[in-house]
């Protein structure tokens, strides 16, 4: 009998061996020292914001504590809730379909459905308005046939929610896929052998087992939505981050921006606590001896067609439609005599910093995730929570924090790629920590204990046992950080070495001046280039499955 469990399913396996032994084991220095270092790095933006916020006078406090601030906070909360719920509803079934069923072309679907993550939100929203706006392409088509003069407003809450959901559901998809691919099928088989159907088994067994992955993904969606500016500004939905950007963009007021950013941090902490409250105390790994087999794919049978329809609809809306419009802009511009620039150096730069950022973020995330999964306690949990702060903050606030510290205390590193990559780690660490923690929970600490009882040291056991078993999580976490870095803009502009160009900065430079053909060719390149590593990961997954 496998003792994998959650609150729902009887046998409780305590989450850590530290607890199992009835005393709190202290984590080794080799774990907590780097984790503490990472924690200190994550605190930099916060320290900066406090320094800036303290400079505020009477008007600052007056502006900060207004009814309007609360109103905007509520609008943000509404959007965060809706986007998170919608992302879960799209991503959880997608993950299950592409990992556990015999869906035709499931790896291709897996690559395609994870790619919307690389579309910068500003571009995504611009494309959505071009396509579905009151006088967009859809309306032009309908006018020809049915004489529709104007479509209902996409602006405001619906537009912001649709765009952000389509761009951010992959934050849930990737961790869920990693979790499903490592999940022990014996519980599901037990459920089926007891006569429960596929739906019941999914709801009572699979879904609860996916909870850590769904939780970490939902957290990323929520914080991403909270920190987005591009989509909400174009969709004219006034959120908290929008208000913060206004202070930077048009008032040049760093003090009020810092004050609002600190309020945003408080809000983000609220979200983090909510996610924490939904975490079960159960274990998610196999507790008995024996080993997990890869699950047999579920036969979809006649459900194949609705499943294909669902995947197709998501890909059509989130990928095909944007890419078609981008291609149309390129074609239209080229026909009108626009030149399409050489993109080699921007592409190479983007790939280089994104791969390096993914690797660095994983290295930094590993000690934090191990602490959180294996030595749960106040310190570990605080550290893990703290790692999410950078992700919730507007990118410009984090970038300016590093300008502040870098230009004063690290002049040798300032405006080098090293500091830029450090900024990416501060911004995107939670993407790595969340996925790794969720994956670690699926690996029984017994395996490490066995290795140690056979003579391996703590590090050796980690290296020979845990890391290899963790590889789906490492790949998913690395992929998330990679895709996020590919499109990151404010930190790249502000902290990049002088003269540094990436695909994201080129897209920004051209689109902000309405060079649509050029912006579109950059955006298409960004999507295509990003798909290569994603495809590589999927191929690897296939090999793992044998």
């Amino acid at each position: 009998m496998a003792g994998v469990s959650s609150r729902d399913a009887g046998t409780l396996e305590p989450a850590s061996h530290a607890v199992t032994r009835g005393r709190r084991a202290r984590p080794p220095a080799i774990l907590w020292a780097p984790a503490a270092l990472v924690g200190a790095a994550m605190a930099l933006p916060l320290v900066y914001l406090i320094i800036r916020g303290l400079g505020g006078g009477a008007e600052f406090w007056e502006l900060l504590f207004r009814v309007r601030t609360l109103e905007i906070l509520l609008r943000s909360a509404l959007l965060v809730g809706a986007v998170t719920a919608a992302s879960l509803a799209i991503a959880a079934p997608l993950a299950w379909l592409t990992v556990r069923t015999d869906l035709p072309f499931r790896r291709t679907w897996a690559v395609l459905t994870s790619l919307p993550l690389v579309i910068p939100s500003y571009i995504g929203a611009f494309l959505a308005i071009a396509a579905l706006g009151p006088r967009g392409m859809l309306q032009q088509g309908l006018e020809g046939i049915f004489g529709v003069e104007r479509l209902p407003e996409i602006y405001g809450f619906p537009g912001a929610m649709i765009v952000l959901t389509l761009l951010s559901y992959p934050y849930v998809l990737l961790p869920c896929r990693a979790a499903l691919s490592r999940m022990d099928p014996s519980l599901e088989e037990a459920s089926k052998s007891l006569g429960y159907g596929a739906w019941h088994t999914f709801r009572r067994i699979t879904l609860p087992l996916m909870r850590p992955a769904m939780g970490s993904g939902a957290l990323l969606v929520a914080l991403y939505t909270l920190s987005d500016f591009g989509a909400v500004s174009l969709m004219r939905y006034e959120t908290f981050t929008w208000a913060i950007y206004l202070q930077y963009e048009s008032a040049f007021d760093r003090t009020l921006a810092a004050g609002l950013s600190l309020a945003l941090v408080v809000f983000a902490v609220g979200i983090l606590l909510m996610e924490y409250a939904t975490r079960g105390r159960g274990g998610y790994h196999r507790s008995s001896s024996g080993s997990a087999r890869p699950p047999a794919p579920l036969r979809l049978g006649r459900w194949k067609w609705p499943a294909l329809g669902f995947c197709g609809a998501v890909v059509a809306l989130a990928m095909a439609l944007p890419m078609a419009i981008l291609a149309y802009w390129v074609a239209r511009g080229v026909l009108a005599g626009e030149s399409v620039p050489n993109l080699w150096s921007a592409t190479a730069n983007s790939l280089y910093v994104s791969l390096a950022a993914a690797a660095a973020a994983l290295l930094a995330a590993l000690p934090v995730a191990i602490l959180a999964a294996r030595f749960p306690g106040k310190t570990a949990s605080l550290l893990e929570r703290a790692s999410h702060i950078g992700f919730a903050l507007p990118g410009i606030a984090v970038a300016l924090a590093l300008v502040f510290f870098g230009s004063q205390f690290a002049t040798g590193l300032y405006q080098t790629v090293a500091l830029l990559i450090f900024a990416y780690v501060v911004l995107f660490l939670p993407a790595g920590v969340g996925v790794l923690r969720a994956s670690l929970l699926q690996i029984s600490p017994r395996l490490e204990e066995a290795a140690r009882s056979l003579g391996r040291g703590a590090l050796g056991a980690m290296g020979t046992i845990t890391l290899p078993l963790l590889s789906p999580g490492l790949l998913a976490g690395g992929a998330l950080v990679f895709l996020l870095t590919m499109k990151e803009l404010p930190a790249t502009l502000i902290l990049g070495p002088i003269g540094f160009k990436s695909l994201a900065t080129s897209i920004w430079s051209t689109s902000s001046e309405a060079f649509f053909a050029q912006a579109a060719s950059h955006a298409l390149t960004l999507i295509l280039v990003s798909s290569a590593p994603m495809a590589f990961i999927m191929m690897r997954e296939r090999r793992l499955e044998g």
Partner: protein
Amino acid sequence: MKDTKKRVPPPVEMGRGARGPGTRFRQGRLWVLLIGACLLLLPAAACGGASSESLTIYSGRSESLVGPVIEQFAAATGIDVEVKYGSTSQMVSTLKEEGNNTPADVFFAQDPGGIGSVEDMLQAVPEAILFKAPDWARDPDGRWVGISGRARVVVYNTENLDASDLPSDLWGFTDPKWKGRIGWPPTNASFQTMVTAMRSMWGEERTRQWLEGIIANEPNAYPKNTPTVAAAGAGEIDVGFVNHYYLYRFIAEEGEGFAARNHHLSAGGPGSLVMVAGAGVLSTSENRDNAERFLEFMLSPVAQQYFASQAFEYPLVEGVRVHQFLTPLSEVNRPNITMRELADLEGTQRLLRDTGILP
């Protein structure tokens, strides 16, 4: 038992069942990947260093607009020019955070508000360069100089409107017949500079009346000029308050068929304001000569011709022809207002907050 030194074979069979050898292989590769990633980071830390003939520019104007003309400068002078591109506000915030440690020699800003907000970090521009630009296009204290001009216009949809349907001044748009047909970018720096001009010319109370009159007509608020012009072209709005040159980018992309054109308000006033993009030299600059050569080049006929013909902006020096699409500056009823009067951004923000336009 405790001090067994014997090497224990890796307990691969405890991993994923039958795939023992694979596990071992993967693990080796994983380390290679991680170490490789660390190596990737190494060269990043070891770069930098500046030659004597160098110049570092922080540009709040995008590369697609000013990149070519900066390259011309580098080619003409042999100076090793490095440019950091970003939005004007990002560059302003960066400069303020860097303070005296800034590596920048020159700041090239999109709008007077942006460069004005870091004016105490700038040093005086030599008069020989400063006076190349007309007096309305430079800092009254001589710390920065205008490089090119940009006019406030009303962009209108040509399918729904004729130029003759448009009022001759901004007050015309407070008429209820414009309800639901107006677009504006209230968070945009140029728009806010126009409001500052209103406050200076009309006074606080009249400006508030105008803003409230427009709000009563339920304007669509766009985040910046580009989407406002796009909306006017699509017919989502009939008129929009924008800067003049975005329209020509749309026409270049979509052809003459793009259904929007610019309208200059003939009665003048703040609605016909001409603003400048300006540049100045940082007082901490160690390349002052090169920085001044850069300003001089930007105000030379070659560069001015570039701004006029490639960026569809207004040249600021005599003898350079504007683009054929543009209404010549002499025919624009430009209000007579100085840069000093356009400086009070804070008061404008307060008014926009009080009227509920900004949060």
